[in-house]
C-alpha cells in the first residue's frame, strides 16, 4: 500500500527563521494505528524542529526496530534517516556522531527496543554521554508482534495477553543511575509539555533521554493497563513545567518568584522551569531519584524535566577529538605519506 500526502498547502502558512514551513518538517503519512500515541510524538518532534528553525539536513534521525522505530519515516522527511536493527540504534548513533559532531542526532526507540533487546547498547550510550536526543516511545508492550508485555510494563498491569508479573524497568531512574546528563519523562498526549522538552533535549550537549508514555491503542489501552490513556491521565503528576527560550531571545515570561528557575544550556538557549513540587531543583540528582521512587510508590507517573546537568562533556570532549567533523578531514589530514612510512620501516629492522 502506498500512502500519498496531499501536497497542497495554504500559501500563507507561517514560516520559521529559515523560511521553512511546518510542511518541510513533516514526513510520509503514518502507517501506525489510528490514535497511536507515537503519532502525537512525531507531531511534537516536527513542531519542535520547526519552531527551533533547525535546518532539516543538519539533523539525522535514527531508530531500531518496532512500531516506535518506524516513526522516523513519519517526521522530518528532508532529513537523513537510518532505521537500523533491533536494539542497536545507540551504536549506530555513536558511530554517526563520531563521524560528524556538528549534526543533531535524533534517536527514536521503543520500550522493547531499549529496555530489552537494546538494553546493553542503551546503557553504554548513556555512560559515554553521547550527544543524542534519545526518545523512548514507551507503551509497555510489543505492538508489531501483537501485544506481548515489554520490560517497562508495570507489575500487575493487564494487557490483552493477561497480567504482567515481572518487575518493570524504569528507564529514567536507570538513566540517572548511569550518569545521564538530561533525563525527562512525558506523555504523548501532552504536547505543551513534550515540545519544550524536545527542544531542551536538542539544545542539551550530551545524552538526553525523554521517556514518553505513549499508549498502544490496539493492545494496551484497556482497563487494568497502567499505560492506557485513561490511566495515565488520572495518575500523571508533573514535577516542573519547562519553557524553552531559544538562544538570543528575550525572556518574556514572568513567573512568581520562588517557583521558577532559569537554566542556560550549552548553545545559549534558556530553560525556564516552573517548579511544581516544593524545593524542586532538576540539577539535584539525588532529589530526582528520590522523587521518582516516591512517585512510583504512590502509583503516580512523574513527568517533566527530572534531571539536567547543563555543563557536561560529551563523548567527543571526553576522548579529545578535533573540532572539525572527522568526516570532513581530507586525505592530507589522514594519510602520513611515504616518507613517514620509510621511518617506520627503519624502526622495524
Amino acid at each position, binding site marked *: 500500500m502506498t500512502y500519498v500526502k496531499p501536497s497542497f498547502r495554504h500559501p500563507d502558512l507561517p514560516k520559521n527563521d529559515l523560511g521553512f514551513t511546518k510542511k*518541510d518538517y513533516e514526513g510520509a503519512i503514518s502507517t501506525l494505528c489510528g490514535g497511536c500515541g507515537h503519532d502525537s510524538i512525531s507531531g511534537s518532534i516536527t513542531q519542535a524542529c520547526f519552531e527551533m528553525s533547525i*535546518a*532539516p*539536513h*543538519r539533523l*539525522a534521525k*535514527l531508530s531500531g526496530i518496532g512500531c516506535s522505530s518506524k516513526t*522516523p*519515516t513519519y517526521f522530518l*522527511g*528532508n*532529513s*537523513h*534517516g*537510518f*532505521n*537500523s*536493527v533491533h536494539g*542497536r540504534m*545507540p*551504536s*549506530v*548513533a*555513536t*558511530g*554517526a*556522531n*563520531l*563521524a*560528524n559532531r*556538528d*549534526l543533531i542526532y535524533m534517536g527514536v526507540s521503543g520500550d522493547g527496543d531499549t529496555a530489552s533487546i537494546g538494553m*546493553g*547498547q542503551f*546503557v*553504554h550510550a548513556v555512560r*559515554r554521554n553521547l550527544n543524542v536526543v534519545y526518545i523512548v516511545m514507551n507503551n509497555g508492550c510489543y505492538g508489531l508482534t501483537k501485544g506481548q508485555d515489554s520490560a517497562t510494563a508495570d507489575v500487575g498491569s493487564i494487557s490483552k495477553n493477561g497480567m504482567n508479573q515481572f518487575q518493570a524497568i524504569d528507564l529514567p531512574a536507570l538513566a540517572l543511575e548511569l550518569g545521564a546528563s538530561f533525563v525527562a519523562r512525558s506523555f504523548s498526549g501532552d504536547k505543551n509539555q513534550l515540545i519544550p522538552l524536545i527542544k531542551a533535549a536538542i539544545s542539551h550537549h550530551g545524552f538526553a533521554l525523554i521517556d514518553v508514555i505513549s499508549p498502544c491503542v490496539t493492545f494496551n489501552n484497556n482497563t487494568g493497563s497502567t499505560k492506557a490513556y485513561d490511566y495515565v491521565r488520572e495518575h500523571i503528576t508533573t514535577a516542573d513545567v519547562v519553557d524553552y527560550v531559544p538562544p538570543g531571545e528575550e525572556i518574556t515570561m514572568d513567573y512568581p518568584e520562588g517557583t521558577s528557575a532559569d537554566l542556560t544550556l550549552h548553545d545559549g538557549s534558556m530553560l525556564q522551569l516552573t517548579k511544581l513540587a516544593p524545593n524542586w531543583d532538576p540539577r539535584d540528582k539525588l532529589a530526582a531519584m528520590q522523587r521518582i521512587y516516591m512517585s512510583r510508590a504512590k502509583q503516580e507517573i512523574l513527568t517533566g524535566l527530572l534531571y539536567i546537568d547543563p555543563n557536561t562533556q560529551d563523548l*567527543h570532549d571526553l*576522548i*579529545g*577529538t*578535533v*573540532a572539525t567533523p*572527522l*568526516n570532513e*578531514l581530507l*586525505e592530507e*589530514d*589522514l*594519510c*602520513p*605519506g*611515504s616518507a*613517514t*612510512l620509510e621511518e*617506520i*620501516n627503519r624502526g*622495524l*629492522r
Partner: protein
Amino acid sequence: MRSVAAVNDFVVRFANVNGTGSASANNMFAKAVFRMGLPFSAKNIFPSNIQGLPTWYEVRISEKGYLGRRDGIDLMVCVNPQSLPQDVKSVSSGGYFVYDSTKILHPEFVREDITYIGIPMMEICLREYTDPRQRQLFKNMIYVGALSMLLDMDFEVFKGIIADEFKKKEKLIAPNIHAMELGRNYVAEHYEYPLPLRMETRDLVGDSILMDGNSACGLGAVYGGATVAAWYPITPSTSLVQAFEKYANRLRIDKETGKKKFAVVQAEDELAAIGVAIGANWNGARSFTATSGPGVSLMNEFLGLAYFAEIPVVLTDVQRSGPSTGMPTRTQQSDILLAAYASHGDTKHILLFPANPKECFEIQALSFDLADRLQTPILVMIDLDLGMNEHLSPPLKWDDSRKYDWGKVYDAEELEQMAQYGRYLDSDGDGITYRTIPGTHPTKGSFFTRGTSRDEYARYTEDGSVYVRNMNRLLKKWDTAKEIIPQPEFYQQGNQNKEGIIFFGTTTDSALEALDLLREDGIELDAMRLLSFPFSKQVEDFVQAHERIYVIEQNRDAQMRSLLINELEVDPAKLIRVLNFDGMPITAAYIQGEIKGKLKS
C-alpha cells in the same frame, strides 16, 4: 649417537612459563638472527592465560629463506619444569636439550639420543641477584647468552639490540649485557662451543622488516584514512586496534590543538563495535572494526544490514581455532564460510586474504577504498599466526600519487542540479549506486536507510518485483567487485601442468616450500594463491585449466574448497582437500606428504 649438524638451517624452541618476561628475551634472540642477515620465522605458542601456564616460542632459521613452520625441534631451551617431560620428548633424535641444571635432571628424562646442556640458570641468578624480579628477568638473558655462545651468534649484534631496546632506560643496558655474559661464560668454561648446530652471518634479509600482521593492519588503517575504530577486546585481534591507536596517536594529532583526528571506541560488545563502524561509515567517515570468529558470529545481523542497505564497512577477522571458544590462542583459517555468507537471507561478502605484514598493511588500507567504492562490508581475513607473530616481510610501501577512492557520493552541487535523487538508482549500469552523506544539501539528497526492502528511491516496498530487481542489482554489483578486488597470484608462466594447488593467507610460505620439496620428488604442480573472494575470471580459468587441484587450507571442513565448488560450480571430485587444523601453522612437509599420498597413481 649422531648429533644434528647444520649451519643456518634448524629449529630452536623455547619452553617458558607464561608471564615471566621470557617473551622479550626470546624476541631478542629472533632479532639477533634477523640482524645477522638470516631469514627466519618465529611462532609464539601461548596459552589462554596471564601467568603460570607453559608457553613456547619457536624459531626456524632458514638460509634458503623458507618462512613457514617446520616440524622437528633441533634445539630445545627448557626453562619450565612443568613442561619438561613433554619438552624432552619433543626434541628430534640427535638434537640438543638446554635446561636449567640447578636441579639434577631426573633419570627418567634422560634420553640416549640427544645431547644435554645443563646451565645452572637459577643458581647463577641466586648468586648474582637479590631482587626476585631481577632473578626472574635476568635468568632469561642468561639463557640467551648461553645460546649465543652455543650457536655461534654475533655478540655485538646482541649488544646493539639491547642498546636499541633500552634507549630510554639506559641504565638497564649494562646489566642486560652482563646477564648475557654470565650465560656465555658458563658455556665457555663448561662446554665445547659452538655446537655442530650454528649460525653464520649472511646478507639474506635485504631491506626486510620484522612486524606482526595486526600492527601492519592497524597502520594500514591509519594510511587508508580510517577515522573511527570500534572494537571489543578478543584474542587474537586485540593488538590490531591497539596498534591503530598507537600509530594514530603518533601520526594523527592536530599540531595546534593537540586534539585527535581519529576516535577509538572500546564498545560494550562486538555487536556495538560493528554498529559504531556502520554508523560512522554511513555518515561519511572511514571506519572499521577488528575481531575474531566469535565476534564475527555476533556481528552477523549487522553485516546483513550493511550488505542490504549498502553501507561501506571494514572488518578484519583475525581467525583463531573454533568452533565456539575453541582454542582461542591457536591459529586456523576456519571462518571462511562464516564470513563469506554472514547473516540471514541471501547475503555474501567480499573477503581479502593478505599473506604477510606488507600485504596486511596494503590490503587493510585498500579495504577502505573498496568499501567506499562497493558500498558493502569488506572483510580482511587474517589469522592468529599472521596477526600475532612477528614475520619477516618486505618493507611497507606507500605510493604518494595514490589517492583515496571515496566511491560514488553526490556532493551538494551535483544534488542541486538534479531533478530527483534516487539512492538505489543504477545509473551507471555496474550495480553500484550513488549515496549521499547526511548534512550535504538543505533540501535534496536525503533518504531513509533501512534493512527493509525498498525501491530505487529508498521508499519502503513489499512489491516482489521491485525486491527482485534490487536483489539482482546487488548481484550485478557482486560481479563488478570480482574484477576490482585483488587478483590471484601465480607462480609459473601460464599453465604448465595438469595438476595444481590453491592456497591463501598464512599457508603461502609452507605451500611454496612444499612445491620445492615436491619438485625434488619429481612432482611439478601449478600454483595459485587466492587474494580475494568473490572469485574472478582468473581464478575460474585456473580451476578450469587443471584436471586436479589440491586446495590447501587450515580448517577441518575444507571451507575454501566448498566456496570454490559452490561459486564456480566445479566438479567436487576435482578439488582435493589438503587440511591441517590442529591449531599449529601448517608445515611444508605436511603438505608434501598429503599431496604425495593423494597423487593420482
